[in-house]
Structures are given as structure tokens and as C-alpha cells.
């Protein structure tokens, strides 16, 4: 009897072997097909498809700027300088010199939605109503939520003629064109045709973008095809088809790339990079407006209220070690923005690794090896832009311990951490917490500097978590907001940046290099210095 069982086992084993051989044969078929680009995203789901995507920057990157256009867009064609905002569905705009709150946008003619209907001033008004006017039938809470931070400065809007739209801001705000790049125009006709039901539109959305959604399956895949009639002939997609696959687990992404299931993965874990390179995969990196900081509390119970402690914390971190741990996929930070950025300015406090100086500063502040400064920081185990939060924080904890800062963590999941950040340091939930490790972007002046440093921009209206107050910073922030000349504005932002660096407003660690890995046959990609990337020139050969 036993012998027979073993025979069974043997035959099962040989069957498996045969199947494996067959699989080897088959997996050749699973390799890339020319013209089809398969991308593994870090998101766990397909972002919202109706217009304003969910899933933050990644949603805009893969579902926003692919299916849709805004009045403005980021110029993502250059890799050697920070991405800028350029005209898109609006050809040009002017600010009323009498009242700088009033903007007039001239729209591009001859633009068609995927469903064939025409893009015009009515469509713009309809879309802004969709996001901000609860009285209109097309108002959609889900999209409004996603758009809120971009639509916040807008007070009112109206049609002047078929090709002209006027937008009024709540206060004088030179940052508006940046915000408009993230407000996407969906087709009013498609919504009408599908019985005014946004959940049906989600299955079959229509924008004006270079790609059209063919089908999607929640949490599994979205298939986009080329829009051959896109108004900008230079941006007709080189690939016929773009397949988006949500893969939140980094190791899964690496395995999928190595086994030929996808052509492109977002954010490979640093330790997989040597292996990927060994298999001839391309590793593409570039700076982008990202900083991995501790946002600090300035409340009375926070040791960080003392500038010496803040400076000491900034000097205690071995950023080169951190970069080494990250496999070189990051650059040490010298402030909020990177050194080559137009807003860097001329700070006098140099952020570097100087533990001796840090110890000296702490001693002056009344701390020492016997009496370490005790701080508690809120961190998360993962999240968009959070890089490798657990090992990075553990590493910094050791750095801090060396100079006499005793750091304790509170680990929350990513959404919970974001909630804590929105609540502000003063909220009862954040009592006794002296910082929050929330990665930050500086793609526009508001998020990056003005609303992070201005004492008028406390959470939740702005992004000033820890109640930072500095009169010089306030004055410069308000001045920047009201300066419409880009060169002049950049200069003021540089001064503002110098002030907050000299004041060691946050602890700044590293800028992520936004790594992605692709198969050797993926060609034509230019990685812009941006959270967003243009997939139109990319092709699989």
C-alpha cells in the first residue's frame, strides 16, 4: 500500500516537472509585446477614473495626465531642470491689473473629448461646477475631495464667450496656474449620455488626454489605448497600449519585473537594485521636489522650541550613511528644496553631518549625555513618498542617540499619520508628540514653502503643523503670494527658504531620487524633475 502511495507521489512529481517545462515554454509568451507598455504602480488600487484621480501623486501621474488635460500642465519633457507649468487647454492668460484676483483664460480651439464632443468655455464652467458648486447636478463629492487642495484658492468662475473663461481667486494668488495643472476636464457629454451617473462614467470616462481608458478592473488592472486624435500632434503616444497594474508590495513588483510580467516598475526597493542591474534592467532616477523630513512642533513642551536643539538635530544625521543604506537612490538634503532649485536662496546655516557641533549646541541648550533631550516622533511603516521609513527612522534614532537626543517613535499606519498631520501639533491626539515624519513635496510655492512656514497657514487651512511663527518668514510668504513675475517670485521664495533653513524650521534628511526600473527594451522615457511623468514618448521595442 505504501509502495503504491509512493508511486503516486512519484507520478505527481514528474507531472509537476512536465508542467514546469511547459511553463518555461509559455513564459516566453508572457514577455513584453512591442507597443504595449505594462507598468506596476505602488498604489493598491486603480485611481479614480472620472476626472480627479485618487491615490495622490501616483494617481495624477497614471490616470490624471494620461486621460485628461487641465487648463495648464507641467512641462515634463526635460530632465535637467525643475518642471515648470506651461499652457495646455488654456493657450494664454492675463491677470487684471486693476484687481489682481481676476484672471482671464483664452482657451485652445479645436480640442475634442474622447467621445467626440467639443471642449469649450461651457465645458470649463461645467467642470469647475462639478468640483465646487453643490447646486449643480454634476457636482461629485468624490472628485471634489480629491480636488480640494487645488481648487481651494478659487472663489468664482464664469464664461465670457465660447473661448474665454474668467476665474476669480479668494485673495491675490500668483500660485493659481500651478493649481490648475491638477484640475482635470472631463466630458459633460459622456456624463449626460450615461444617465448622469458618475459611477458609470468611471467605467467609460472621457477626457481630452493622450490616452483613452479601454477597460479597468478594480485593484487589478487598467488598460489605456492611444488617442489618435489628440490635439497636440507631438504628444500622440508612441505605445499603442498602456496597462497599469497596482502592486503595493515592493518585492512583488521586483519579482514581476524580473519574471517578465511587467516592463516598468515604480519605486524598486534599493536592495533589489544590484540584482535588477545584473539582469540588465534600466534604473532611472532624477531629482524631484521631494523631501523626507521631521516636521517639528514649536509648542511649549517640545524640546524643538529651542533653535539649538533643532540645529543639533539637523547636524546629528549622517546623511551620507542614509544615502548609502538607500543604495544611492537619494541625495542628502541641505534644506527644504534641493540645492540646484531656483528657490534654494542663500541660507547661512549649512546642514551637514557634524556630531561634535551638535553635542556642543545641545550642551548649551542644557542637555547632555546624562540628560538627553527626549523627543517623540510620529512615523509610519509605509506610504507614498515615505521611502523606507522603518529602517531610515531606526538609523536616525541611532544618530540622535550618539549626540544626546533620545528619540521615541509612535508608529501609525499611513492614513492615520496623515490625519495626525492634518490635526496639527496642538490637537489632543498629538499631545507629547514633537514631530511628524510626513514626506513632503514642493512642486508649488504654496505647499513647499508659503503654507508650510506662514503662521497664517496653520493646519488644516495651510500646512503649518507645529505652529511655527517667524515674522520675517510671514512677510516674505505673503509677498511671494502676491508677486506675479516668476523670476521675482522665485527670488522672494529663495529668501523665504533661507530664513527657514537658518531657523532650522524642520529636520531635513534626504531628497528621494524617484527610482523606477524598466526592462532594457523600454525606450524613449525622459524622467522629469517632477512627481508626474510623461508616458507619451515611451515605447517597448
Amino acid at each position: 500500500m505504501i509502495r503504491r502511495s509512493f508511486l503516486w507521489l512519484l507520478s505527481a512529481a514528474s507531472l509537476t516537472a512536465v508542467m514546469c517545462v511547459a511553463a518555461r515554454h509559455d513564459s516566453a509568451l508572457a514577455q513584453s509585446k512591442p507597443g504595449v507598455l505594462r507598468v506596476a504602480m505602488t498604489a493598491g488600487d486603480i485611481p479614480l477614473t472620472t476626472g480627479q484621480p485618487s491615490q495622490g501623486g501616483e494617481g495624477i501621474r497614471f490616470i490624471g495626465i494620461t486621460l485628461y488635460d487641465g487648463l495648464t500642465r507641467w512641462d515634463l519633457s526635460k530632465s535637467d531642470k525643475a518642471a515648470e507649468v506651461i499652457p495646455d487647454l488654456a493657450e494664454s492668460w492675463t491677470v487684471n491689473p486693476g484687481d489682481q484676483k481676476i484672471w482671464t483664460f483664452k482657451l485652445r480651439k479645436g480640442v475634442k473629448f474622447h467621445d467626440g464632443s467639443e471642449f469649450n468655455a461651457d465645458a470649463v464652467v461645467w467642470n469647475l461646477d462639478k468640483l465646487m458648486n453643490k447646486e449643480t447636478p454634476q457636482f461629485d463629492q468624490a472628485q471634489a475631495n480629491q480636488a480640494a487642495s487645488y481648487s481651494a484658492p478659487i472663489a468664482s468662475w464664469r464664461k465670457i464667450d465660447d473661448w474665454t473663461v474668467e476665474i476669480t481667486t479668494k485673495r491675490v494668488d500668483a500660485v493659481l496656474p500651478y493649481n490648475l495643472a491638477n484640475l482635470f476636464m472631463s466630458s459633460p457629454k459622456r456624463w449626460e449620455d450615461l444617465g448622469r451617473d458618475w459611477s458609470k462614467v468611471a467605467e467609460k470616462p472621457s477626457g481630452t488626454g493622450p490616452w483613452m481608458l479601454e477597460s479597468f478592473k478594480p485593484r487589478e488592472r487598467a488598460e489605456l489605448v492611444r488617442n489618435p486624435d489628440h490635439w497636440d500632434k507631438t504628444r500622440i503616444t508612441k505605445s499603442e497600449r498602456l496597462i497599469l497594474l497596482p502592486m503595493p508590495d515592493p518585492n512583488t513588483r521586483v519579482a514581476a519585473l524580473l519574471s517578465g510580467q511587467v516592463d516598468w516598475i515604480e519605486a524598486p526597493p534599493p536592495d533589489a537594485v544590484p540584482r535588477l542591474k545584473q539582469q540588465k534592467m534600466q534604473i532611472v532616477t532624477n531629482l524631484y521636489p521631494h523631501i523626507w523630513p521631521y516636521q517639528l512642533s514649536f509648542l511649549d513642551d517640545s524640546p524643538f522650541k529651542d533653535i539649538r536643539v533643532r540645529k543639533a538635530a539637523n547636524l546629528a544625521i549622517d546623511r551620507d550613511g542614509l544615502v548609502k543604506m538607500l543604495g544611492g537612490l537619494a541625495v542628502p538634503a541641505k534644506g527644504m528644496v534641493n540645492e540646484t532649485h531656483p528657490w534654494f536662496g542663500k541660507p547661512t546655516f549649512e546642514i551637514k553631518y557634524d556630531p561634535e557641533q551638535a553635542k556642543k549646541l545641545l550642551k548649551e541648550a542644557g542637555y547632555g549625555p546624562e540628560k538627553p533631550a527626549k523627543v517623540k516622533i510620529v512615523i509610519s511603516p509605509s506610504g507614498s513618498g515615505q521611502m523606507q521609513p522603518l529602517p531610515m527612522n531606526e538609523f536616525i534614532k541611532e544618530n540622535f542617540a550618539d549626540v544626546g537626543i533620545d528619540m521615541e517613535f509612535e508608529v501609525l499606519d499611513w492614513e492615520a499619520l496623515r490625519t495626525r498631520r492634518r490635526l496639527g501639533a496642538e490637537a489632543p491626539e498629538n499631545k507629547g508628540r514633537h514631530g511628524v515624519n510626513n514626506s513632503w513635496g514642493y512642486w508649488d510655492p504654496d505647499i513647499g514653502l508659503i503654507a508650510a512656514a506662514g503662521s497664517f497657514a496653520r493646519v488644516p487651512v495651510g500646512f503649518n503643523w507645529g505652529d511655527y511663527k517667524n515674522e520675517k518668514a510671514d512677510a516674505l510668504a505673503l509677498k511671494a503670494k502676491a508677486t506675479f513675475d516668476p523670476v521675482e517670485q522665485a527670488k522672494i521664495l529663495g529668501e523665504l527658504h533661507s530664513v527657514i533653513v537658518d531657523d532650522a524650521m524642520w529636520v531635513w534628511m534626504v531628497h528621494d531620487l524617484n527610482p523606477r526600473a524598466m526592462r532594457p527594451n523600454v525606450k524613449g522615457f525622459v524622467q522629469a524633475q517632477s512627481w508626474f511623468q510623461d508616458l507619451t514618448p515611451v515605447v517597448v521595442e
Partner: protein
Amino acid sequence: MSQTSIAVAGLGAPLKGKRPVTRSFWQNVFRRLTRDPVTMICLAILVLIIIAAVFAPLIAPHDPYRTSMARRLIAPGDARYWLGTDELGRDLLSRLIYGGRLSLFTGFTPVLLATVIGGTLGIIAGYLGGAINMAIMRVIDIFYAFPSVLLAVAISGVLGAGIGNTILSLTLVFIPPVARVAESVATQIRAQDFVEAARATGAANWRIVSSHVVPNVTGPILSYASSLISVSIVLASGLSFLGLGITPPEPEWGLMLNTLRQSIYVAPLNAVMPGVMIFITSMCFNLMSDGLRSAMDVKQ
């Protein structure tokens, strides 16, 4: 793992022997256990792991928290770092030794708590019967109506990460099966002649429970609970692996597995090490639990 033996073993632990358990029963069990080489080997390994964990500061060759980028991911077999180093250059052997503390703690504690709470509930329900039995057991049934992994993940997911929440969720998962075992045994005991006799002579309930019910229930519960320890260790490490368990920088095997697995392509041996520790520990507990069960099986 995890969901596993709960469903099966729980109901498969019927009352052995109809007589009150005597001292000699436990002596017999003990004698059988000491003569079983597999159990003894497992015991030795576990004692070793536990001693190492308890006296970690004396035994660990290096500081488990000391990071160094210069020596990250050294392969096992190094002269200084015997089992290599992790992604932050910390000595892996030291971290595995320290890691035993939390891993064993999160393995033991829920089982211990569930045994005490579930056992008490089960005995009360089984001995008192009637409406109280009804009330307790129906609530238990509701929690038993969830797949165990699902319940643990759901509770931890909702409450958030942390040692306390992990222990809480695992305890809640283990109470229903323990209570069911205790209840079924206690119900059987209650119907026994010697209990009826004791009642007839007017003995107080607590006296009957402590002298007749508890000693008889102890065996089946112990045998069942021992099989839960390995489930608990694997499940707790699974929660840490998902990011729902222990929070860093504490060394814990599941969490180490989680953070090290991104290095699986450059340092596969280092990355699988914590998994091996979880496996060995859970295996030993399982084999010991088996040994205990067969030693308590009077028929053999």
C-alpha cells in the same frame, strides 16, 4: 498555520477517563514525556531559545540596536558577525536572540490569557448550565463564527499596530475555542456521579469546581492550549509582517522578516533567517504539544 488547529484540535480533545483525575495521572504523563526523545529534544531547543531570550543582554555578542552602514548585509559565516548583519548593519545573531523576547512573549501571552479567560468562561458555562451557559456560549459562538486569521487581522487592522493590540486581538481569537473545550469537558463532569454525590452532600459550588471540575478540565485545556502556542507565534509574526504587529525598532522575528525581505535578492540567507527561527520555534512547540497529547492519552 494559524487558523489551522483551532478548528480541529479544539473539538478533538474529548474527556479522557471518567474518574476524577488523580495525582498519579500527572505523574504518569510526566514520566511518559521524559521518556519521549522527540519531546525532550524539542524541550531542550526551546529552553535554549528561551534562556537566550531572557539573558539576551549577557549572551548576545553585539548591541542589537547598533547600526552601521559600513557593515550592512554581511553574509552569514563572518568571523565577527556569525549570522551576518541586517539592512542597517546590526548583528543578526544578536537581533535574533533579542527578537525571541518579543516573539515568544506575543506567542505565549495571548494563549495564557485566552486559557485563563476562556477556561473560566467555559467552566462557568459548563458547570452552571442553563441560561448562563446559553448566554456565554452563544456570544462565544459568534466570535467562533469568524475565520481566525480574519478576526486577528480585522481587530489589529482596526485598532492599529502595537504589542498591546496584537496581544488583544490574538487573545480574542483564542478565547472561543478554549472556552468550547472547557465547556464541553465541564458539562460532562457536571453529569458525573461523583459530582452529583458531592452536590447531594451539600458541598459549595466553588468547592466542587475547585476540587473536581478544575483538575479534570486542566488536562484537555492544557493539551489544547499547548497546540495554540505555535499558532500564536506564527500568527503574531504574520501580523508584524503585514505591518500590523510589533512596531520598530524592537527586534521581533516577524518584523525582521518584513524589513529584511527587500534584501532577499542581494542577501537571501540573511533575509530568510528570521523565518527559520519562527519555523523552528513553532515546530518545537507543535511537536511538544503532540507529545503531551499522546502522553495524556490514557488509551495508549
